[in-house]
Protein backbone atom coordinates (compact mmCIF):
# COMPACT_ATOMS: atom_id res chain seq x y z
CA UNK A 1 0.00 0.00 0.00
CA UNK A 2 1.26 3.45 -0.88
CA UNK A 3 2.14 5.80 1.97
CA UNK A 4 -0.58 8.29 2.84
CA UNK A 5 0.15 11.56 1.02
CA UNK A 6 1.12 14.44 3.27
CA UNK A 7 -1.36 16.83 1.74
CA UNK A 8 -4.58 16.53 -0.19
CA UNK A 9 -6.77 18.80 -2.26
CA UNK A 10 -10.51 19.09 -1.97
CA UNK A 11 -13.29 21.29 -3.20
CA UNK A 12 -16.14 21.75 -0.82
CA UNK A 13 -18.67 23.93 0.91
CA UNK A 14 -17.83 25.17 4.41
CA UNK A 15 -20.66 23.97 6.67
CA UNK A 16 -19.66 25.47 9.98
CA UNK A 17 -16.98 27.17 12.01
CA UNK A 18 -15.88 26.78 15.59
CA UNK A 19 -13.43 29.27 17.01
CA UNK A 20 -10.38 27.91 18.75
CA UNK A 21 -8.11 29.96 21.00
CA UNK A 22 -7.24 33.52 20.01
CA UNK A 23 -7.15 33.39 16.24
CA UNK A 24 -7.74 29.84 14.97
CA UNK A 25 -10.93 28.20 13.71
CA UNK A 26 -11.98 24.64 13.12
CA UNK A 27 -13.98 24.40 9.91
CA UNK A 28 -16.27 21.60 8.85
CA UNK A 29 -16.18 21.18 5.07
CA UNK A 30 -18.39 18.99 2.92
CA UNK A 31 -16.54 18.02 -0.24
CA UNK A 32 -17.24 15.75 -3.16
CA UNK A 33 -14.04 13.74 -2.93
CA UNK A 34 -13.44 13.48 0.83
CA UNK A 35 -16.98 13.71 2.12
CA UNK A 36 -17.33 15.72 5.30
CA UNK A 37 -14.14 16.57 7.18
CA UNK A 38 -12.85 18.91 9.85
CA UNK A 39 -9.58 20.79 9.73
CA UNK A 40 -8.02 23.70 11.54
CA UNK A 41 -7.33 27.07 9.94
CA UNK A 42 -4.49 28.66 11.88
CA UNK A 43 -4.59 32.42 12.38
CA UNK A 44 -7.65 32.72 10.18
CA UNK A 45 -9.31 35.29 12.46
CA UNK A 46 -6.39 37.71 12.21
CA UNK A 47 -6.90 40.75 9.98
CA UNK A 48 -4.00 39.80 7.74
CA UNK A 49 -4.76 36.12 7.33
CA UNK A 50 -4.65 35.16 3.68
CA UNK A 51 -7.19 32.41 4.15
CA UNK A 52 -9.76 34.61 5.83
CA UNK A 53 -12.90 35.09 3.80
CA UNK A 54 -12.12 31.92 1.85
CA UNK A 55 -13.11 29.69 4.75
CA UNK A 56 -16.33 31.32 5.87
CA UNK A 57 -19.36 29.09 6.37
CA UNK A 58 -21.51 29.04 3.23
CA UNK A 59 -18.51 29.47 0.94
CA UNK A 60 -17.52 27.03 -1.78
CA UNK A 61 -13.74 26.77 -1.76
CA UNK A 62 -10.82 24.83 -3.12
CA UNK A 63 -8.54 23.90 -0.25
CA UNK A 64 -5.19 22.28 0.31
CA UNK A 65 -5.06 20.33 3.56
CA UNK A 66 -2.11 18.78 5.39
CA UNK A 67 -2.54 15.73 7.58
CA UNK A 68 -1.93 16.64 11.20
CA UNK A 69 -1.34 14.52 14.26
CA UNK A 70 -4.77 15.10 15.71
CA UNK A 71 -6.48 17.53 13.33
CA UNK A 72 -5.72 18.22 9.69
CA UNK A 73 -4.58 21.75 8.84
CA UNK A 74 -5.65 24.01 5.97
CA UNK A 75 -2.60 25.32 4.16
CA UNK A 76 -4.36 27.12 1.30
CA UNK A 77 -7.89 28.15 0.49
CA UNK A 78 -9.37 29.83 -2.54
CA UNK A 79 -13.00 30.81 -3.03
CA UNK A 80 -14.92 29.23 -5.89
CA UNK A 81 -18.21 30.89 -4.96
CA UNK A 82 -19.02 33.08 -1.95
CA UNK A 83 -22.75 33.18 -2.87
CA UNK A 84 -22.79 36.89 -2.28
CA UNK A 85 -26.35 37.54 -3.45
CA UNK A 86 -27.54 34.63 -1.34
CA UNK A 87 -25.85 36.08 1.76
CA UNK A 88 -27.48 39.45 1.18
CA UNK A 89 -30.94 37.89 1.18
CA UNK A 90 -32.17 36.91 4.64
CA UNK A 91 -34.73 34.33 3.47
CA UNK A 92 -32.31 32.67 1.06
CA UNK A 93 -29.58 32.63 3.75
CA UNK A 94 -31.95 30.93 6.17
CA UNK A 95 -32.87 28.26 3.59
CA UNK A 96 -29.19 27.72 2.74
CA UNK A 97 -28.19 27.37 6.39
CA UNK A 98 -30.92 24.81 6.86
CA UNK A 99 -29.55 22.80 3.89
CA UNK A 100 -26.02 23.00 5.33
CA UNK A 101 -27.25 21.75 8.69
CA UNK A 102 -29.06 18.84 7.03
CA UNK A 103 -25.84 17.79 5.30
CA UNK A 104 -23.90 18.11 8.54
CA UNK A 105 -26.39 16.07 10.54
CA UNK A 106 -27.04 13.36 7.95
CA UNK A 107 -23.44 12.59 6.94
CA UNK A 108 -20.53 10.80 8.58
CA UNK A 109 -16.97 12.09 8.36
CA UNK A 110 -14.82 10.95 5.41
CA UNK A 111 -17.66 9.30 3.58
CA UNK A 112 -17.50 10.54 -0.03
CA UNK A 113 -20.94 11.39 -1.38
CA UNK A 114 -20.25 13.15 -4.69
CA UNK A 115 -23.91 13.07 -5.72
CA UNK A 116 -24.99 14.78 -2.52
CA UNK A 117 -22.25 17.37 -3.00
CA UNK A 118 -23.49 18.11 -6.53
CA UNK A 119 -27.01 18.36 -5.17
CA UNK A 120 -25.93 20.84 -2.47
CA UNK A 121 -23.98 23.04 -4.88
CA UNK A 122 -26.94 23.04 -7.26
CA UNK A 123 -29.35 23.97 -4.46
CA UNK A 124 -27.12 26.86 -3.31
CA UNK A 125 -26.88 28.16 -6.87
CA UNK A 126 -30.66 28.11 -7.24
CA UNK A 127 -31.15 29.84 -3.87
CA UNK A 128 -28.61 32.41 -5.02
CA UNK A 129 -30.68 32.86 -8.15
CA UNK A 130 -33.72 33.78 -6.08
CA UNK A 131 -35.54 30.44 -6.07
CA UNK A 132 -37.25 29.97 -2.73
CA UNK A 133 -38.31 27.24 -0.34
CA UNK A 134 -39.13 24.76 -3.15
CA UNK A 135 -35.39 24.31 -3.63
CA UNK A 136 -35.10 23.22 -0.01
CA UNK A 137 -38.02 20.77 -0.38
CA UNK A 138 -36.37 19.15 -3.39
CA UNK A 139 -33.04 19.09 -1.56
CA UNK A 140 -34.55 17.39 1.50
CA UNK A 141 -36.24 14.71 -0.60
CA UNK A 142 -33.20 14.00 -2.75
CA UNK A 143 -30.92 13.92 0.30
CA UNK A 144 -33.20 11.37 1.99
CA UNK A 145 -33.20 9.29 -1.21
CA UNK A 146 -29.41 9.40 -1.64
CA UNK A 147 -28.89 8.26 1.93
CA UNK A 148 -31.36 5.40 1.60
CA UNK A 149 -34.29 6.97 3.45
CA UNK A 150 -36.54 7.55 0.44
CA UNK A 151 -40.19 6.99 1.39
CA UNK A 152 -41.99 4.31 -0.62
CA UNK A 153 -44.72 6.21 -2.51
CA UNK A 154 -45.68 4.00 -5.46
CA UNK A 155 -48.08 1.77 -3.56
CA UNK A 156 -48.82 0.80 0.02
CA UNK A 157 -45.51 0.27 1.81
CA UNK A 158 -47.05 -2.46 3.98
CA UNK A 159 -49.05 -4.66 1.58
CA UNK A 160 -47.88 -3.43 -1.82
CA UNK A 161 -51.42 -2.69 -3.06
CA UNK A 162 -52.04 0.09 -5.54
CA UNK A 163 -53.26 3.32 -3.95
CA UNK A 164 -56.36 5.16 -5.15
CA UNK A 165 -55.91 8.85 -5.91
CA UNK A 166 -57.02 10.22 -2.55
CA UNK A 167 -55.70 11.55 0.74
CA UNK A 168 -53.31 8.92 2.08
CA UNK A 169 -51.33 8.29 5.26
CA UNK A 170 -47.61 9.04 4.99
CA UNK A 171 -45.93 7.14 7.79
CA UNK A 172 -42.25 7.84 8.51
CA UNK A 173 -41.91 4.73 10.69
CA UNK A 174 -43.57 2.44 8.12
CA UNK A 175 -41.40 4.08 5.45
CA UNK A 176 -43.95 5.50 3.05
CA UNK A 177 -47.58 5.73 2.01
CA UNK A 178 -49.99 3.33 3.71
CA UNK A 179 -53.37 2.15 2.34
CA UNK A 180 -56.60 2.37 4.35
CA UNK A 181 -56.54 -1.32 5.28
CA UNK A 182 -53.01 -1.22 6.64
CA UNK A 183 -53.46 2.13 8.44
CA UNK A 184 -54.16 0.64 11.92
CA UNK A 185 -50.74 -1.06 11.98
CA UNK A 186 -48.81 1.84 10.43
CA UNK A 187 -47.59 3.36 13.72
CA UNK A 188 -48.43 7.01 13.19
CA UNK A 189 -47.85 9.53 10.47
CA UNK A 190 -49.82 12.22 8.74
CA UNK A 191 -52.54 12.24 6.11
CA UNK A 192 -51.26 13.96 2.98
CA UNK A 193 -53.29 15.42 0.14
CA UNK A 194 -53.20 14.36 -3.50
CA UNK A 195 -51.16 17.43 -4.60
CA UNK A 196 -48.52 16.63 -1.96
CA UNK A 197 -48.29 13.00 -3.12
CA UNK A 198 -47.89 14.20 -6.70
CA UNK A 199 -45.11 16.59 -5.66
CA UNK A 200 -43.33 13.82 -3.72
CA UNK A 201 -43.42 11.71 -6.90
CA UNK A 202 -42.41 14.58 -9.16
CA UNK A 203 -39.35 15.36 -6.97
CA UNK A 204 -37.91 11.90 -7.77
CA UNK A 205 -37.45 12.61 -11.46
CA UNK A 206 -37.32 16.41 -11.55
CA UNK A 207 -34.14 18.44 -11.22
CA UNK A 208 -34.16 21.07 -8.49
CA UNK A 209 -34.68 23.76 -11.14
CA UNK A 210 -37.66 21.91 -12.62
CA UNK A 211 -39.15 21.36 -9.18
CA UNK A 212 -38.65 25.01 -8.20
CA UNK A 213 -40.38 26.11 -11.41
CA UNK A 214 -43.68 24.51 -10.33
CA UNK A 215 -46.13 27.02 -8.94
CA UNK A 216 -47.21 25.54 -5.60
CA UNK A 217 -50.08 27.20 -3.69
CA UNK A 218 -49.04 28.37 -0.19
CA UNK A 219 -51.23 25.85 1.64
CA UNK A 220 -49.73 22.96 -0.36
CA UNK A 221 -46.23 24.38 0.29
CA UNK A 222 -46.99 24.36 4.01
CA UNK A 223 -48.36 20.83 3.93
CA UNK A 224 -45.40 19.57 1.92
CA UNK A 225 -42.99 21.28 4.30
CA UNK A 226 -44.62 19.70 7.36
CA UNK A 227 -44.79 16.23 5.77
CA UNK A 228 -41.10 16.29 4.82
CA UNK A 229 -40.18 17.78 8.21
CA UNK A 230 -41.68 14.68 9.83
CA UNK A 231 -39.59 12.39 7.64
CA UNK A 232 -36.47 14.38 8.52
CA UNK A 233 -37.32 14.36 12.22
CA UNK A 234 -37.93 10.61 12.16
CA UNK A 235 -34.55 9.81 10.58
CA UNK A 236 -32.54 12.38 12.58
CA UNK A 237 -34.42 11.81 15.81
CA UNK A 238 -34.68 15.60 16.15
CA UNK A 239 -35.46 18.78 14.26
CA UNK A 240 -32.55 20.63 12.69
CA UNK A 241 -31.85 23.84 14.66
CA UNK A 242 -32.05 26.05 11.59
CA UNK A 243 -35.69 25.14 10.96
CA UNK A 244 -36.82 27.54 13.69
CA UNK A 245 -34.79 30.30 12.11
CA UNK A 246 -36.31 29.74 8.66
CA UNK A 247 -39.76 29.93 10.22
CA UNK A 248 -38.90 32.97 12.37
CA UNK A 249 -37.56 34.86 9.39
CA UNK A 250 -40.59 34.18 7.22
CA UNK A 251 -42.90 35.12 10.12
CA UNK A 252 -41.16 38.51 10.33
CA UNK A 253 -41.71 38.95 6.62
CA UNK A 254 -45.44 38.58 7.08
CA UNK A 255 -45.42 41.18 9.85
CA UNK A 256 -45.03 38.80 12.88
Amino acid at each position, binding site marked *: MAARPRVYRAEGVVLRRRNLGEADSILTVFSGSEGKFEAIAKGVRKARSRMRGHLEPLTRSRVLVAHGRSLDVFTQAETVDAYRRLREDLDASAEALYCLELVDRFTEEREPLPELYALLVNALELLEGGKGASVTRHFELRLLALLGYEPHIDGCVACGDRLPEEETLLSPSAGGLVCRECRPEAGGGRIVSVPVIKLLRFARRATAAEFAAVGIPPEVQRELRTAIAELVRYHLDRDPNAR*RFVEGVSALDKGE
Partner: protein
Amino acid sequence: MPEAGAPEPIARLIQEFSKLPGIGPKSAQRLAYHVLRAPEDDARALGQALADVKERVVLCESCFNITVSDPCALCDDEQRDRTLVCVVEQPLDVLVVERTGGFRGLYHVLHGSLNPIDGVGPEQLRIQELLRRVEAGAVAEVIMATNPSLEGEATSMYVQRLLQPLGVRVTRLARGLPSGADIEYMDDLTLSRALEGRQEL
Protein backbone atom coordinates in the same frame (compact mmCIF):
# COMPACT_ATOMS: atom_id res chain seq x y z
CA MET B 1 -8.00 15.17 36.60
CA PRO B 2 -5.95 16.42 39.55
CA GLU B 3 -2.20 16.34 38.97
CA ALA B 4 -0.82 13.15 40.48
CA GLY B 5 1.40 13.97 43.44
CA ALA B 6 0.52 17.68 43.65
CA PRO B 7 -1.07 18.67 46.98
CA GLU B 8 -4.84 19.13 46.78
CA PRO B 9 -4.99 22.99 46.75
CA ILE B 10 -2.45 23.26 43.94
CA ALA B 11 -4.06 20.44 41.97
CA ARG B 12 -7.34 22.32 42.24
CA LEU B 13 -5.75 25.55 41.03
CA ILE B 14 -4.21 23.73 38.05
CA GLN B 15 -7.59 22.31 37.23
CA GLU B 16 -9.25 25.76 37.38
CA PHE B 17 -6.56 27.39 35.22
CA SER B 18 -6.86 24.65 32.61
CA LYS B 19 -10.52 25.60 32.09
CA LEU B 20 -9.41 28.97 30.67
CA PRO B 21 -9.38 29.42 26.89
CA GLY B 22 -6.02 28.72 25.30
CA ILE B 23 -4.53 27.28 28.50
CA GLY B 24 -3.35 23.69 28.16
CA PRO B 25 -2.40 21.41 31.08
CA LYS B 26 1.28 22.46 30.94
CA SER B 27 0.50 26.19 31.02
CA ALA B 28 -2.02 25.62 33.82
CA GLN B 29 0.67 23.90 35.84
CA ARG B 30 3.15 26.73 35.23
CA LEU B 31 0.59 29.38 36.24
CA ALA B 32 -0.38 27.49 39.39
CA TYR B 33 3.24 27.14 40.58
CA HIS B 34 3.82 30.79 39.69
CA VAL B 35 0.96 31.80 42.00
CA LEU B 36 2.38 29.53 44.69
CA ARG B 37 5.77 31.27 44.53
CA ALA B 38 4.33 34.80 44.21
CA PRO B 39 4.14 37.15 47.23
CA GLU B 40 1.01 36.61 49.29
CA ASP B 41 -0.35 40.10 48.41
CA ASP B 42 -0.19 39.37 44.69
CA ALA B 43 -2.04 36.09 45.12
CA ARG B 44 -4.73 37.78 47.24
CA ALA B 45 -5.10 40.59 44.69
CA LEU B 46 -5.64 38.00 41.96
CA GLY B 47 -8.28 36.23 44.05
CA GLN B 48 -10.01 39.53 44.85
CA ALA B 49 -10.00 40.59 41.18
CA LEU B 50 -11.56 37.27 40.20
CA ALA B 51 -14.26 37.64 42.85
CA ASP B 52 -14.95 41.30 41.93
CA VAL B 53 -15.38 40.60 38.27
CA LYS B 54 -18.34 38.35 39.05
CA GLU B 55 -19.72 40.37 41.97
CA ARG B 56 -19.33 43.94 40.81
CA VAL B 57 -19.58 43.79 37.03
CA VAL B 58 -23.19 43.90 35.84
CA LEU B 59 -24.95 44.55 32.56
CA CYS B 60 -26.23 48.04 31.82
CA GLU B 61 -30.04 47.79 31.70
CA SER B 62 -30.13 50.09 28.71
CA CYS B 63 -27.30 49.08 26.37
CA PHE B 64 -26.30 45.70 27.93
CA ASN B 65 -22.65 46.63 27.96
CA ILE B 66 -20.69 45.39 30.96
CA THR B 67 -20.40 48.02 33.66
CA VAL B 68 -19.89 48.56 37.41
CA SER B 69 -22.72 51.10 37.57
CA ASP B 70 -26.15 50.91 35.95
CA PRO B 71 -26.71 52.88 33.72
CA CYS B 72 -23.18 52.63 32.38
CA ALA B 73 -20.90 55.66 31.95
CA LEU B 74 -21.65 55.84 28.21
CA CYS B 75 -25.44 55.80 28.63
CA ASP B 76 -25.10 58.28 31.49
CA ASP B 77 -23.04 60.76 29.44
CA GLU B 78 -25.27 63.77 28.63
CA GLN B 79 -22.92 64.84 25.82
CA ARG B 80 -23.63 61.77 23.70
CA ASP B 81 -26.16 61.73 20.88
CA ARG B 82 -29.17 59.74 22.08
CA THR B 83 -30.68 59.44 18.62
CA LEU B 84 -27.81 57.25 17.35
CA VAL B 85 -27.41 53.64 18.48
CA CYS B 86 -24.48 51.50 17.36
CA VAL B 87 -25.27 47.77 17.62
CA VAL B 88 -22.32 45.46 18.33
CA GLU B 89 -21.91 41.76 19.06
CA GLN B 90 -19.63 41.91 22.10
CA PRO B 91 -18.71 44.34 24.92
CA LEU B 92 -15.14 44.35 23.58
CA ASP B 93 -16.44 45.78 20.29
CA VAL B 94 -17.68 48.87 22.19
CA LEU B 95 -14.12 49.55 23.32
CA VAL B 96 -12.83 49.15 19.79
CA VAL B 97 -15.39 51.55 18.30
CA GLU B 98 -14.79 54.02 21.17
CA ARG B 99 -11.06 53.95 20.47
CA THR B 100 -11.68 55.36 16.98
CA GLY B 101 -13.11 58.49 18.63
CA GLY B 102 -15.38 58.84 15.61
CA PHE B 103 -18.67 57.91 17.21
CA ARG B 104 -20.62 60.01 19.72
CA GLY B 105 -23.86 58.06 19.99
CA LEU B 106 -24.91 55.23 22.27
CA TYR B 107 -24.43 51.47 21.96
CA HIS B 108 -26.40 48.27 22.13
CA VAL B 109 -24.58 45.02 22.86
CA LEU B 110 -26.29 41.90 21.50
CA HIS B 111 -23.95 39.43 23.24
CA GLY B 112 -23.40 37.32 20.16
CA SER B 113 -24.64 36.89 16.63
CA LEU B 114 -27.28 34.68 15.06
CA ASN B 115 -25.99 31.19 14.45
CA PRO B 116 -29.05 29.19 13.42
CA ILE B 117 -27.15 25.91 12.92
CA ASP B 118 -25.72 26.01 16.43
CA GLY B 119 -29.14 26.94 17.79
CA VAL B 120 -28.36 30.59 18.56
CA GLY B 121 -31.57 32.34 17.57
CA PRO B 122 -32.88 35.88 18.16
CA GLU B 123 -34.16 34.90 21.60
CA GLN B 124 -30.62 34.09 22.77
CA LEU B 125 -29.46 37.63 21.94
CA ARG B 126 -30.49 41.06 23.27
CA ILE B 127 -32.59 41.67 20.15
CA GLN B 128 -36.01 42.11 21.79
CA GLU B 129 -34.38 44.65 24.13
CA LEU B 130 -33.16 46.59 21.09
CA LEU B 131 -36.65 46.52 19.61
CA ARG B 132 -38.11 47.92 22.84
CA ARG B 133 -35.43 50.60 22.96
CA VAL B 134 -36.29 51.75 19.45
CA GLU B 135 -40.02 51.51 20.16
CA ALA B 136 -39.51 53.93 23.07
CA GLY B 137 -39.03 56.54 20.35
CA ALA B 138 -35.81 58.53 20.94
CA VAL B 139 -33.70 56.58 18.42
CA ALA B 140 -33.49 57.96 14.87
CA GLU B 141 -30.74 55.74 13.48
CA VAL B 142 -29.50 52.26 14.29
CA ILE B 143 -26.00 51.49 13.00
CA MET B 144 -25.31 47.78 12.67
CA ALA B 145 -21.66 47.15 13.54
CA THR B 146 -21.81 43.38 13.64
CA ASN B 147 -18.89 41.37 12.27
CA PRO B 148 -18.73 41.07 8.48
CA SER B 149 -19.15 37.29 8.84
CA LEU B 150 -22.06 35.12 7.76
CA GLU B 151 -23.47 35.27 11.30
CA GLY B 152 -22.90 39.01 11.65
CA GLU B 153 -24.55 39.74 8.30
CA ALA B 154 -27.52 37.52 9.09
CA THR B 155 -27.92 39.31 12.43
CA SER B 156 -27.78 42.67 10.73
CA MET B 157 -30.40 41.70 8.11
CA TYR B 158 -32.63 40.19 10.77
CA VAL B 159 -32.53 43.33 12.93
CA GLN B 160 -33.17 45.47 9.88
CA ARG B 161 -36.30 43.46 9.03
CA LEU B 162 -37.44 43.53 12.65
CA LEU B 163 -37.08 47.31 12.95
CA GLN B 164 -38.38 48.19 9.49
CA PRO B 165 -42.04 48.65 10.55
CA LEU B 166 -40.93 51.25 13.13
CA GLY B 167 -39.62 53.56 10.42
CA VAL B 168 -36.22 54.00 12.09
CA ARG B 169 -33.21 54.42 9.81
CA VAL B 170 -31.06 51.26 9.87
CA THR B 171 -27.54 51.47 8.47
CA ARG B 172 -24.55 49.19 8.61
CA LEU B 173 -20.80 49.64 8.45
CA ALA B 174 -19.52 50.06 4.91
CA ARG B 175 -18.14 47.14 2.95
CA GLY B 176 -14.47 46.87 2.38
CA LEU B 177 -13.95 45.15 5.68
CA PRO B 178 -12.45 41.73 5.04
CA SER B 179 -14.98 38.91 5.29
CA GLY B 180 -14.73 36.44 8.14
CA ALA B 181 -12.94 38.80 10.52
CA ASP B 182 -13.61 39.59 14.14
CA ILE B 183 -14.18 43.30 14.73
CA GLU B 184 -11.86 42.87 17.68
CA TYR B 185 -8.91 42.35 15.29
CA MET B 186 -9.62 45.27 13.00
CA ASP B 187 -7.34 48.29 12.86
CA ASP B 188 -8.68 51.71 13.92
CA LEU B 189 -8.30 53.32 10.50
CA THR B 190 -10.31 50.63 8.75
CA LEU B 191 -12.96 50.81 11.41
CA SER B 192 -13.32 54.61 11.48
CA ARG B 193 -13.52 54.70 7.66
CA ALA B 194 -16.14 52.01 7.81
CA LEU B 195 -18.14 54.12 10.26
CA GLU B 196 -18.03 57.13 7.93
CA GLY B 197 -19.12 55.10 4.92
CA ARG B 198 -22.14 53.40 6.51
CA GLN B 199 -25.05 52.57 4.19
CA GLU B 200 -28.80 52.20 4.21
CA LEU B 201 -29.88 48.57 4.65
